[in-house]
């Protein structure tokens, strides 16, 4: 049981890092899709949502192909920034981030759309600069929705398997998150004893995230 704690801790750390990583671009893109019309918007929407429907293994392979030590981008990151993505912890974060990104963007988009544009316009009429309108009107009013999106993304990141095992492999103590550990234990005779605590923990965390997300959504509708 005690040897399972590092696995749980690594999973939480990875999912949290992934969620924080996608927060700025996710909020910006969600707002952009909710509030702006521009040529190529449908195309962008499709691109954002692709990881939602693509087999995660494909997402992982695409990332590995683009960022492996053998690729120009991978070499650049490693030589100039000292950042190793493939077969390392940043790879686990990136895989989880890409796969959960669309969930966050969709939630932010819905949340921002639910804010009445009239309030924003009123603030603008009163000469508030754009950033102030965003910070004092749009953001507070859509905060519940954004938080809900973060929870969903976090829960998805916690469960990420396919893209992670391809991009980051299953390295104990570095990229072996809960789902990968369960996979390894499943393939060992007598591994079941380790599986149940992990399964239980995943279930509780996933259910708590969904429940909290539901509560937040209800608050939006009551607001």
């Amino acid at each position, binding site marked *: 049981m005690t040897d399972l704690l590092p696995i749980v801790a690594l999973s939480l750390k990875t999912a949290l890092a992934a969620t924080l990583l996608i927060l700025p671009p996710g909020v910006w893109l969600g707002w952009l899709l909710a509030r702006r019309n521009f040529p190529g918007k449908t195309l962008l929407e499709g691109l954002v949502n692709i990881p939602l429907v693509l087999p995660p293994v494909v997402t992982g392979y695409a990332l*590995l192909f683009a960022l*492996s*030590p*053998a690729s120009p981008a991978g070499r650049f990151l490693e030589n100039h920034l000292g950042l190793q993505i*493939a*077969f390392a912890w940043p790879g686990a974060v990136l895989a989880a981030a890409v796969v959960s990104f669309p969930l966050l963007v969709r939630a932010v988009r819905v949340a921002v759309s639910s804010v009445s544009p009239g309030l924003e316009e009123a603030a603008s009429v009163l000469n508030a600069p754009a950033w102030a309108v965003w910070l004092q009107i749009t953001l507070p009013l859509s905060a519940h929705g954004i938080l809900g999106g973060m929870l969903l993304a976090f829960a998805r990141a916690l469960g990420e398997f396919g893209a992670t*095992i391809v991009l980051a*492999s*299953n*390295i*104990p103590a570095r990229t072996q998150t809960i789902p990968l550990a369960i996979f*390894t234990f*499943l*393939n*060992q*005779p007598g591994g079941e004893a380790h599986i149940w605590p992990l399964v239980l923990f995943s279930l509780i965390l996933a259910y708590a995230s969904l429940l909290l997300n539901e509560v937040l959504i209800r608050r939006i509708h009551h607001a």
Partner: protein
Amino acid sequence: MAGAKPHTPFWGIAFLAILTLVLPHCDKAPSPLRVYAAASLSGVLPQFIDAFRTGNRQVRIETVYGASSVLARQIEAGAPADVFLSADQDWMAFLDSLALIRPLSRREICRNRLAVVCAPGNPLNIRETGDLLRAGEGQIALGDWHHVPLGKYAHQALQRAGLWQQLLPRFVPAVNARAAYTYIWQGHLPVGIVYASDFSPDRMHLTGFPLADSLQPHISYPGALLRQTRHPEAEAFLTFLSEPDRDSLWVENGFLPAGPPHD
């Protein structure tokens, strides 16, 4: 509303759905021989199947490849296999202990050796096993040593060489032997420990060398019939794989033929 017109899409979709459920059961052809085989056999087994089928055109053979551990656990869970070919004796013994194989059918079909294989251009300039140490930070591909036979064998060999602990932080465990080999073949990782049989067919752009004899673990591939099999060709196929006539085919593909009992 949907029921008002007979040609609503709903009925078309329902019809297709029923068809997909029913059609597979209308198949009159004899059921296929289902062979669950270690991933490291995926290069060579199709040749054996072709050879076997020249003598028996009727038989259809379906193969499922994966780490022996993954396959053994699937069989334990009730996967419909007729023949199991494992890359190590442990996983076969595991199924034997659960009374899932026919013990008398169990036999060695071939043997293998471990090799160090280097990515195209040998970026770390590795010439012998000891060079793995001075190769610095480069990561090393091998099978996941918790369950994949390739990884367990590599563990034994590197333990024997006194290198395991020092190299441990640099290992990248792969889900099966082919995956470990693919990491290197595609250049994602600079070096790995794989089966000698894995890099023999296309070694033109890869370099590598077998581990020293003193480090080689005893790598023995057992085959057995599953207790549940009713397939009339299962026994013949397993026998075909292990007959002395087939030794040359194993050797051509970088394996060693089955031999007298070890130790």
